[in-house]
C-alpha cells in the first residue's frame, strides 16, 4: 500500500493575522509555520496503513524553501519519502496548486492520495477534490474512518447530522477530518531517522508546467481586510441568576429577535 500525503504549511493557529503592505497578502513577519492540523490526521492514517500493509508514505509539499521543514517533521513522524516542489505558491490559486500536486503525484507510486479536509489558512477546501478530478480518481471528503484492502477503500464521510459509508475504487483521494485517528508525535528515533532521508526536490518546470499554468488568475485576491474590531457590548453581573437570565431573554427577544 503506497500513499502520498499532500502537506500544506500554514501559520500557527495562535497567529494574530496582520495585513501586508500591498493590502492583498498577510504580513509574514514573525509568523511561525506549522503543518496544517488536518494534514496530521491524513499523515497518521497513511503511516498506519503502511505499518499494517507495507509500502511507502511519500509526503509532498509545494511552496518556498520553508516547506522543507514541514516535510522533515512529517518524515520524523513516520513518512518514508519526501518530495518538495519548489516554487512561489503564494499567488497560485487552488487549481494552480492542484495542477502542480497532480503532476508531482504522477511521479510517485501510489494507491491512495491523502489531504487534510482543509488547509487551516486560506480555508478553501478545494485542492484535494481538484487533484482527484485532474487524476481521474474518485474522492471521499471529510473522512473520519478508513479501511483499505483489495483495491478498494471503505471510507466514512461526515455530512450534516449523518455519516455516509462509501466504497471507492483505488487509487482514490481521501481528505481527513479530525477524529479519524490520534496523530502521533515524532519520536527521537524518528527525528534521527528522518535526518538520513533526502528530500527530493523538483521545480515546476521539471513537472512540465509553467508559471502561467499556475498563476493564471482564475481567482485573484483583490483585497484582504481584518474584520471590524468589536468593542464588546453590555456586561452585567450574574450574581442573581434569575435576574441575569431575564436580562438575557430580554436581549434575545429585543435585539436578536430569536424568541
Amino acid at each position, binding site marked *: 500500500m503506497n500513499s502520498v500525503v499532500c502537506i500544506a504549511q500554514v501559520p500557527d493557529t495562535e497567529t494574530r493575522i496582520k495585513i501586508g503592505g500591498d493590502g492583498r497578502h498577510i504580513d509574514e513577519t514573525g509568523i511561525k509555520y506549522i503543518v496544517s492540523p488536518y494534514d496530521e490526521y491524513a499523515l497518521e492514517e497513511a503511516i498506519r496503513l503502511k505499518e499494517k500493509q507495507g509500502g511507502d508514505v511519500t509526503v509532498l509539499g509545494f511552496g518556498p524553501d520553508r516547506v522543507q521543514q514541514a516535510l522533515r517533521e512529517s518524515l520524523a513522524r513516520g513518512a518514508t519519502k519526501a518530495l518538495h516542489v519548489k516554487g512561489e505558491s503564494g499567488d497560485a490559486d487552488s487549481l494552480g496548486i492542484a495542477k502542480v500536486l497532480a503532476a508531482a503525484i504522477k511521479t510517485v507510486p501510489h494507491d491512495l492520495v491523502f489531504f487534510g479536509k482543509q488547509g487551516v489558512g486560506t480555508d478553501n477546501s478545494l485542492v484535494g*477534490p481538484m487533484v482527484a478530478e485532474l487524476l481521474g480518481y474518485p474522492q471521499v471528503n471529510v473522512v473520519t474512518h478508513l479501511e483499505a484492502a483489495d483495491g478498494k477503500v471503505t471510507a466514512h464521510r461526515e455530512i450534516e447530522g449523518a455519516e*455516509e*459509508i462509501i466504497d471507492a475504487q483505488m487509487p482514490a483521494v481521501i481528505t481527513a477530518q479530525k477524529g479519524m485517528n490520534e496523530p502521533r508525535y515524532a519520536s527521537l528515533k524518528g527525528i534521527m531517522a528522518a535526518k538520513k532521508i533526502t528530500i527530493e526536490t523538483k521545480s515546476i518546470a521539471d513537472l512540465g508546467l509553467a508559471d502561467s499554468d499556475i498563476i493564471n488568475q482564475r481567482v485573484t485576491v483583490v483585497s484582504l481586510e481584518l474584520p471590524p474590531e468589536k468593542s464588546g457590548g453590555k456586561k452585567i453581573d450574574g450574581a442573581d*441568576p434569575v435576574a441575569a437570565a431575564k436580562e438575557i431573554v430580554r436581549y434575545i427577544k429585543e435585539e436578536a429577535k430569536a424568541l
Partner: protein
Amino acid sequence: MTVLVFCEVQDNKLKKASREALSIGRKLAADAGGDLVAFATDRAVADDAGRYGAKKLYVANAGGYNTETYTAAMQAAIGQASASIVLLGGTSNGRDLAPRLAARLNVGVASDVDRLEWTGGKLHARRPVYSGKAFATVEISGKPAIATTRINAFPAEESGGGAAEIVEVSALLDSKTKVVETKVSEADELSIAEADIIVSGGRGLKEGANFSLIRDLAHAIGGAVGASRATVDAGWIDHQHQVGQTGRVVSPNLYIAAGISGAIQHLAGMSSSKHIVAINKDPEAPIFRIADFGVVGDLFTIVPALTEEVKKAKAH
C-alpha cells in the same frame, strides 16, 4: 447572463443553503440583466425553485448524491444553460462538488463566500480566511465563475414566482464510488453548520456530563449544541459540535457561549455571529471583548435559570 444554482432537497423541501443560494443568485442575475435557473435531481423542486425566482429547473436523473455522477450532470446542465455563474450552498455536498466541477471546467471557484457582487462584468466574492481572522475579496474568472455560499450569510427571500420550467439534462452517469450506507447520527440534534441559534459549552463545564445543561438550553431555545476545542479534545462531546479554527466556522443569528473563555481559534470561528451572548465567571475572559451581551457569573446557576426563562418566553 445566466446564474445557475445547485439545489439540494431534504424532507421534500429545498435545503436552507439552497434557498439562500437561490436568493443571492436572483439578485446577481438581476444586477447582470440575466436569468436565474436551478439544477436538481428531483423534479418536485420546480415549485420551490420557482418561488425563489428560478425560471427553469434543469433536472438529471442522478439519484442520491455522488461526486462523480453529480459532476457530470452539473457539467451538462451548465452547458445547456450556458451559465456564467454557478452557486452552490455551502453544505457537505456543495463543498464536495464545487472544486471537482471547477477543475473539470478549468474555471475559478471561491468557497464559503459571505458576499457576492457582480461588478464590471466580473464576479467578486468576499470570504473568510484564517478561519475569520481576516476577509479576502476575490475576483472569480472563467465561464462559469463558481462559488459556494456560506450558510446563514445570505437571507432566503422568496420572489413569488411560479413553478420553474423543467428541462431534462442527459449526462453519462458513471462513478467509481458507491454509498453503501447512510447512518443518521444523533437524529434529534441540529447541525451547527445550518443552525440559526447555537448554544456552546466550554471548559467551564468542568466535566462532560455537564453538557446536559447546554443541551437543555439548546433544546428549549431551538438551537444546535456547539463546543470549544478543549471539550472535544477532552472527549466530552463529538467533534461535529466543535466551533472554531479546527472545527466549523459559523455565523448564526444568535450564539450563546457558556464557560468559554475565548481562545483566538474559537473567536475566529464564531465572531461573525450576528448576536453573541457570553456567560463566564472571569470578567477578563476574551469572549467578553466580542460579546454583545455578557454576564459575569456562574454558568451552573445562570444556564438552568436561562433555560427556564426561555421556556416561559416560548410558552407565551
